[in-house]
């Protein structure tokens, strides 16, 4: 039998489109053309621009100013080992860079070659992506690099004429975070029992309720439950609730047809086992009160890989689903006010 899994790697990845609003649309549309801009507000030029004056919260307006592409480093640090989220795959600096024509610095990457090249006061200039690849996002600037000529940027500080309509009004973002969770003692007990073809719960010594699957606590009494409170529960019960999900397409969605997820109250239990699939019953014929029994995956096909802390009560790949027993339905109103 396969071992229960001790650690679970979970990648939180999703695409995201952000609308930019008028200020950032102006900035992004200019940036995609290779022009960095700021906004003059409250007597100073803020670059990159914000929608509001941070001192007064007043609308920062549309007094756009061309800034850069050269600037001066005011503070800096060094990243010796970049992460997967950093834009460069070799050691680089981050810096506060006050672009020519601006009064506030921007935070950006400095590709300086070595840490010893970094200093306050160093002159740097923006290195853009190929114009065809520019989308108006801050990383259209690959990095700032030491300026070949420290003289002031041409045109910096001059007004920027924004087009009547901005070309870029949205920004694509992508979240990519990794988590490594470890199985709690309660999760391990549940996974082990499932692998052995057993369903277990924990019986609270205070209120005598049986909670399936085990939670490590009684969520009525707020007391800790452990291995000594484990009880076996039968693989038979009654559908106490269900919902029909009409799948909308999104990245990672594999379902295409409406499907149901059911709560099942196992015989002798007080809390339902949720998110279960009833086999061979059309969605339109599902109802509260149906008697069902568990269908296990064959022993050699069981895997506890999906039995993690977040899938509390889920059967993963070990429970294939539940099939009707053919017994007459129970009255539906018997299943009101059930705990999760």
């Amino acid at each position, binding site marked *: 039998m396969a071992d229960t899994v001790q650690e679970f790697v*979970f990648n*939180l990845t999703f695409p995201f489109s*952000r609308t*930019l609003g008028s200020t*950032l649309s102006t900035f992004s549309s200019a940036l995609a053309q290779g022009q960095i801009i700021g906004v003059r507000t409250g007597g100073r030029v*803020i670059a*990159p621009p*914000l929608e509001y004056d*941070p001192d007064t919260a007043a609308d920062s307006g549309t007094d756009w100013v061309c800034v850069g592409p050269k600037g001066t480093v*005011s*503070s*800096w*640090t*060094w*990243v*010796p080992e*970049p*992460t*997967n*989220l*950093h*834009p460069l795959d070799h050691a680089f600096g*981050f*810096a*506060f860079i006050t672009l020519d024509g601006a009064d*506030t*610095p*921007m*935070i950006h990457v400095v590709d300086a070659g070595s*840490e010893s090249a*970094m200093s*306050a006061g160093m002159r740097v200039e923006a290195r853009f992506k190929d114009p065809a690849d520019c989308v108006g*996002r*801050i*990383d259209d600037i690959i990095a700032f690099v030491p300026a070949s000529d420290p003289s002031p940027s041409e045109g910096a500080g001059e007004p920027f004429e924004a087009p009547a309509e901005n070309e870029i009004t949205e920004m694509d*973002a992508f*979240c990519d*975070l*990794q*988590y*490594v*969770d*470890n199985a*709690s*003692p*309660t999760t391990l007990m549940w996974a082990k029992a499932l692998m052995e073809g057993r369903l277990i719960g924990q019986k609270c010594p205070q209120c005598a309720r049986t909670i399936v699957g085990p*939670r*490590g*606590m*009684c*969520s*009525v*009494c*707020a*007391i*800790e439950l452990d291995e000594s409170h484990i009880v076996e529960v039968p693989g038979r019960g009654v559908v106490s609730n269900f919902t029909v999900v009409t799948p909308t397409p999104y990245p990672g969605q594999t379902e295409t047809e409406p499907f149901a997820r059911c709560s099942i109250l196992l015989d002798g239990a007080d809390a339902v086992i949720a998110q279960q699939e009833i086999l061979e019953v059309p969605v339109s014929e599902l109802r509260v009160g149906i008697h069902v029994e568990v269908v296990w995956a064959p022993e050699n096909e069981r895997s506890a890989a999906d039995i993690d*802390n*977040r899938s*509390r009560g889920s059967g993963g790949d070990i429970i294939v689903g539940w099939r009707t027993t053919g017994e007459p339905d129970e009255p539906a109103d018997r299943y009101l006010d059930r*705990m999760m």
Partner: protein
Amino acid sequence: MAPSENDIAIVGFAQLPPERRTNLTESDLVLRSTREVIAQVGIDKSEIGFTVSGSCDYLSGQGFSFVQNTDAYGMVPAINESHVEMDGAWAMYEAYVRLLQGDIDIAMAVGVGKNSNSDPSTLFTVEFDPYYLTPLGTDTWTLAALQARALIDSGKATERDFAEVVVRNRANAKSNPFAQVKGDYSVDELLAADYVRNPLRRHDLPPTTDQAAAVILARGKRAYDLCERPAWITGIDHRIEAHLPTVRKDITTSVSTRLAAEAAGAGKGPIDVAEIHAPFSFQELILRESLGLDGSTEVNPSGGALAAHSVMTVGLIRVGEAANQIIKNGKNRALAHTTSGPCLQQNLVCVLEGDQ
């Protein structure tokens, strides 16, 4: 003092031992910390009129993780409950405000953070400006380092000063049973380490900690039923600065901390003990100055945030440690501080006083 019915006190505080990596879930941690504080003040959970927690879905990597955590309160019959996606110190602030409404006498605030599931060098990129910072992978260590470099270049502090903060906090932590990082170190041995983000070394960064903590607050005379010497909250305030550190006029000082301390009445009398939440060593130097603390105040006898740093719990622990200075140590006036956001963006100051 004879408390008025609108005086609110902290009457109990429990924290779990900090761990680098627990195998318990956040719900388990909430259960253990709340059970402990409830037992400490000797009430039944049904006497709690309001329960509020601080935790973060991004830390646990699970949407609505706080809903699962409420199992630990015993929610049948239904209870009055709330949640903030911030440190438990802000949950405590909400509990305080809730008690001021005057219809309940006891509230509980919880902070929980299982930080070991995620990677601090990447996770906090999603906390920052999504247009100008997140696409660059700008991480929390980088932003702190940029602030630290500015502090050095201003002439206010050196890397040696940073290391001295670490040496003192780790030494203080030796007498704190709830410290994860503690011991005797020398400044020179610390300064021999490599930079993680120049000018910051590993010791300047917060440790990664799994932990939970809980406090119980009580209103008016009810406080004396639960605690011999309540820690009265005589002032509390929370101020926020611009989210982009680059548009602040001077990041070598903390305007929001100064304003919060003034509004909380920190300067109205001497402060015996201050528990300061400085995630990065050098930030303690900025905060001491912005809080207006002088040499007469004992700072971070617990070892502070460098001794254990469970994001979402660490601020509430500052409040609890400060309260315990009054409840258990007989001190008269204590200050608790907590921060959130890049480069000390948000700051909360709470002044606690015992009966004289």
